[in-house]
């Protein structure tokens, strides 16, 4: 492989999962897909959304339902399925903790993390990356806009 290609890769792109990291990914994917119909966005906010995966929303909304929710609480795109955010709201009300997270503004999705393990990204702080000028004022996570130091888990 040419070495300059390696050098040009931005630091936040998740490296190819191998060994222990691959095992972690497989465990996370198989369990969360089965339980939450998880879409492996790699930056999990399940606890903020009543343990309902917001990436199941056809519009990938991270901050609440769109205006097209049907009167029966179903999705406008899939009228035979309940709106993900109606479920998120109802379930979040029953949560003993993190109920207030429904009020917080969630940051934009970092699409580079799709398909990677959010557990690994949590440990390595890779999921803490925000666009430099994204203001987190009043947000769950208090970040000043500086990109976090990314740590790579050893193989």
């Amino acid at each position, binding site marked *: 492989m040419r070495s300059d290609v390696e050098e040009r890769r931005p630091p936040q792109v998740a490296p190819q999962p191998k060994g222990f990291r691959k095992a972690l990914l497989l465990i996370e994917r198989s369990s969360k897909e089965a339980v939450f119909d998880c879409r492996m966005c790699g930056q999990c906010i399940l606890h903020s959304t009543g343990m309902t995966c917001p990436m199941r929303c056809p519009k990938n909304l991270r901050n609440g339902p769109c205006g097209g*929710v049907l009167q029966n609480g179903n999705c*406008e795109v899939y009228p035979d399925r309940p709106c993900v955010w109606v479920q998120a709201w109802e379930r979040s009300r029953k949560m003993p903790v993190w109920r207030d997270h429904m009020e917080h*503004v969630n940051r934009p999705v970092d699409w580079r993390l799709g398909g990677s393990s959010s557990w690994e990204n949590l440990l390595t702080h890779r999921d803490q990356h925000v666009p430099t000028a994204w203001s987190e004022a009043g947000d769950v996570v208090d970040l000043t806009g500086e990109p976090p130091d990314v740590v790579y888990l050893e193989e």
Partner: protein
Amino acid sequence: MTADGKTPPIQPRSNLEALLRAGEFVVTSELQTTDGADPVSVTELADMLRGSVDAVNCTDNSAAHPHLSAVAAAHLLADRGVEPVVQFACRDRNRLSLQADLLGAAALGARNVVCMTGDDVTAGDHPEAKPVYDLDSTHLLRVARAMRDDGTYVSGRALSSPPSFFIGAVENPFAPPLDFRPMRLGKKIEAGAEFIQTQIVFNLPRFRTFMARVEELGLLDHVSVIAGIFIPRSAASARYLRDQVPGIDVPEEIVSRMEAAPKERQAEEGLQICLELVEQVRGISSVSGIHLMSIKQETAIVRVVRESGLLPRPLPRTSNAPAAEAVAPSVARS
């Protein structure tokens, strides 16, 4: 004070903002979508609405159908002396394209923007298209605010001159989860929304409950709420809204009232319903204005404004407002 504790700017960014700040009951409307390359299709509508409304929304591929671009329409409106409100939907563009168009809209004279998610592509005539949804509406609000207040793209790269926008959002008080809607409005305010245009109001009790909760949460200190009002033209159009457009709550009594009228009187009945709704909505002290929508009946919009006693509209109050001399004498406000 805005949500993030900043004091509002001394100069309002747009005439719409100036009027809202002055406590005027504002009237906005929506430009009928056009599918022609001829600018006359927009300028004709602009001439019809000028003087009757304070600002006109340029929709962004509404109902997921492609139409003349909102930014282009906004430029044509501004040129004709009508203040545009440019809608930005997250469905068709990623964050690069959205920011490019926000900047482009500002350069072409737009001073009001409204950020929204957008109907899904499956609702339109290109259902097989790839939807984008890179950002959601809340994200886009904050990106627009960052461009304006911090003078940078969201990446942090500096703009040589920042846009000056009055930033708006939409909210639907009538779609589930109903209890979450006022809180969601609060999130949009936190993200940057300074005014709100609501989904079409037919269900007044539901709207009153929503507004009471919005007031209770203290959100009206940060945002002006403009109520969406539709002028039904026929019983069929009322049924269409109820059955075909997701998220609109049309009570049975509205539909049956339209159906009870003979066919040739239905447009008149729709106008009456609309006038009554405007009257009721004006009675809600927390509402700052109305946003009139119709399908292909601009004359009805003008009639509703006139018959509701909302004419004459206040004169433009900002230097940003479209220049009065742009108005040709033959089409000047009557």
